[in-house]
């Protein structure tokens, strides 16, 4: 099995890059399940025939983050963080990995990549990026983008993003994505040359379509509703969780005061002194244990946030459908009106309002030749229109089919991931309870020796 040469078009022939390692076992499992077996490429745009599978597997990691200074677009000095992306190919047999590519990217380049993917794969629920600015922070967490903890969590989030893309059966084959991982210089220009920004649907158009579309696929309407609700409920959850974390922090930290006062008290006691002193030490341990506990919980919050942002991606697919459907409806309407016009001209009845009709009334009847000419033009337009409608219909149906397939894939992924997240959250809570029991049991022992 050889590796096919890079396709001049944006799609590549080689098999999807199988990610290994990464932030969670979840992705490995997801990737494994998706790439094993014969997954039909459902993009419909470029049919994949004769997939060449690489024997080697690919490892992607965002391994480092570095502060840089440079000049921005308006030639002002700015500080930003750059992330090192390393790609390794892993030999099947011995599991050894060889570094094949390594380059630095900043967050804005990730954004560019994602925007490109959104335009060219509108039927795909495109994985989201980690948040641009820290939100849902509880007081101890910094909201500063330069804060090392934030940078670290962002690094993990970016890696997660790349792994999600790499494990997506359609997205992984994209050339721009491939270049993102392999071509450091000039990549931005290459992306922009695709002219994807021009192809993007305007927000206004999308909004217009949302209000005016008459017959959208019910499933998409429901899905949009679901994604709105999901976004709302996860936001709420994250907000309250942050407050809960804040309060819990307070409870634990105040216990540290016990440590101090027990120590002071033990100084005036004879037999009780030792017991008090050592119990006080345990109170200090208790108070300081909260830092690690809450740090772990941030990981859970990040998992929730990913799906908060995924809701937006879901909505984008729904909007695209509405747009296409509206487009189709408009074209059909247009065609119908032209047909009617034509009919009226042919039969001489005027039911529809037309400029020509008006001018005819004002300036006199037209000649039969003029009428014939007009009919001919209209018939041509009608023909064209019918062709267009046919292709739009096809397009629309293809879109619905492909989008829905990806949505089903997404649903499974979401259920899996969130279940895992809840399990790990429960495990965190269990660990916290056990630590609490341990500390207080130790303290109790000290007290009983007083």
């Amino acid at each position, binding site marked *: 099995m050889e590796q096919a040469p890079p396709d001049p078009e944006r799609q590549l022939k080689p098999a999807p890059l199988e990610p290994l390692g990464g932030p969670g076992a979840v992705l490995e499992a997801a990737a494994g399940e998706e790439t094993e077996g014969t997954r039909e490429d459902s993009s419909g745009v470029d049919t994949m025939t004769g997939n060449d599978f690489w024997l080697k597997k690919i490892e992607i990691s965002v391994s480092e983050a570095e502060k840089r200074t440079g000049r921005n677009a308006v030639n002002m000095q700015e500080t930003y963080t750059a992330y090192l992306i390393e790609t390794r190919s892993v030999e099947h047999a011995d599991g050894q990995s060889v570094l094949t590519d390594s380059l630095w990217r900043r967050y804005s380049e990730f954004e560019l990549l994602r925007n490109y993917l959104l335009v060219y794969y509108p039927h795909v629920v495109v994985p989201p990026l980690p948040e641009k600015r820290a939100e849902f922070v509880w007081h101890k967490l910094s909201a500063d983008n330069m804060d090392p903890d934030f940078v670290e969590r962002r690094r993990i989030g970016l890696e997660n993003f790349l792994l999600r893309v790499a494990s997506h059966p359609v997205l992984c084959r994209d050339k721009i994505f491939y270049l993102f991982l392999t071509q450091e210089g000039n990549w931005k220009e290459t992306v922009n040359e695709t002219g994807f920004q021009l192809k993007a649907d305007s927000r206004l158009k999308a909004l217009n379509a949302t209000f005016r579309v008459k017959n959208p696929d019910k499933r998409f309407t429901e899905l949009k509703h679901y994604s709105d609700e999901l976004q709302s409920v996860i936001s709420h959850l994250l907000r*309250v969780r942050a407050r809960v974390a804040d309060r819990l922090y307070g409870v634990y930290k105040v216990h540290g005061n016990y440590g101090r006062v027990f120590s002071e008290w033990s100084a005036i006691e004879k037999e009780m002194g030792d017991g008090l002193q050592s119990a006080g030490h345990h109170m200090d341990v208790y108070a300081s244990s909260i830092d690690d506990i809450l740090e772990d919980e941030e990981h859970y919050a990040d998992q929730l946030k990913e799906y908060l942002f995924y809701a937006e991606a879901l909505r984008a697919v729904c909007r695209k459908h509405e747009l296409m459907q509206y487009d189709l409806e408009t074209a059909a309407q247009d065609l119908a009106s032209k047909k009617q016009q034509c009919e009226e001209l042919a039969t001489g009845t005027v039911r529809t309002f037309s400029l020509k009709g008006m001018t005819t009334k004002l300036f006199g009847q037209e000649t039969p030749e003029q009428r014939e000419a007009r009919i001919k033009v209209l018939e041509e337009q009608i023909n064209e229109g019918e062709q267009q409608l046919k292709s739009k219909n096809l397009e629309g149906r293809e879109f619905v089919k492909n989008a829905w397939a990806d949505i089903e894939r997404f649903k499974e992924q979401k259920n899996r991931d969130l279940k895992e997240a809840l399990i790990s959250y429960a495990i965190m809570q*269990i660990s916290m309870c056990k630590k609490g029991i341990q500390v207080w049991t130790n303290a109790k022992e000290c007290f009983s020796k007083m």
Partner: protein
Amino acid sequence: MAGGPPKALPSTGPHSLRDMPHPLAGSSSEEAMGGDSTPSPDLLMARSFGDKDLILPNGGTPAGTSSPASPSSLLNRLQLDDDIDGETRDLFVTVDDPKKHVCTMETYITYRITTKSTRVEFDLPEYSVRRRYQDFDWLRNKLEESQPTHLIPPLPEKFVVKGVVDRFSEEFVETRRKALDKFLKRITDHPVLSFNEHFNVFLTAKDLNAYKKQGIALLTRVGESVKHVTGGYKLRSRPLEFAAIGDYLDTFALKLGTIDRIAQRIIKEEIEYLVELREYGPVYSTWSALEGELAEPLEGVSACIGNCSTALEELTDDITEEFLPVLREYILYSDSMKSVLKKRDQVQAEYEAKLEAVALRKEERPKVPADVEKCQDRMECFNADLKADMERWQNNKRHDFRQLLVGLADKNIQYYEKCLMAWESIIPLLQEKQETK
């Protein structure tokens, strides 16, 4: 009989000694049990305590019958209170059965005091009377008056500082009952105080008010004499050992005060945490309604958080009702002890002043005048009593605080055990593979 509807008055009217049957006069107690209406005293046989329904506005459960399911709490209930001295006791006093009395002028609570004793000072082997806080307050004052050289245990606070607390709430009454019970038990355990006449009357008299009005001064010799010590004498310096006690009590009260504030702060933080948890849990429920496969897991998490919230509420209630009152009791204790120390200083000051006066008179009498001798006597008695009481107090304090802090640790352990159980029980639910869909 006690156990029926609340009576208007705690006592059943004054009885003369002649009306009271002789303890050996047959089955009078059984007759009394039978609920006859003869004017015989209200004697009660040994009854099971703690299982009676309290007639309280909220109808609560009697003390000590809570049933947390966690292992450590079960263990604790099996542990018996250790007998401090291990000596055979001949006097047992219990405070229980609070009842609300509604009269035209006021509403108040009475408690049943049950006494069992083989001491000769008690005419009968058992007594049961009802007393209110006022009566306890009276008793304490009388003890302070009549036994000024001894440390008198504190009463729970008389007035409720925070206007928010309901004087008749189950929690408040129970907290107070426990404190009053502790108060009487401490007196019972004291080798001198337990034989005090006022104490005896408190435990046994049918009509305490009548006795109070009589104002019979049954003062001991020391008490009488100490009463007459005016505040005119100033002590030059406290002997080292009493100075040390004074310093200790100062620091002790200070540290307890700090612990009280910390505990209150913790409760405040825990309550705020609870408020957030109560909002947090239901959001998972809301989410669950949107989902298909995830519905059950999310609902499970919601229920779990709810359980943890309840456990937390129980913890904060426990600390408020059981931990804080004891702390405050000891702060009051050390305050009253400091004033006893001052009284001792007075006695010593009087002695030293009189001694000095004698020396200045430059009389060549080798023998010391009688009144100076008396002062010396008084002082030495006082010192001895106080030293003995301090030692006893230190022992009790150690025992009490050990119990208190072990109890605090236990409550926290129970809280975490409840939460642990909740979270562990949903793991299988979360891991369950959904067959449908």
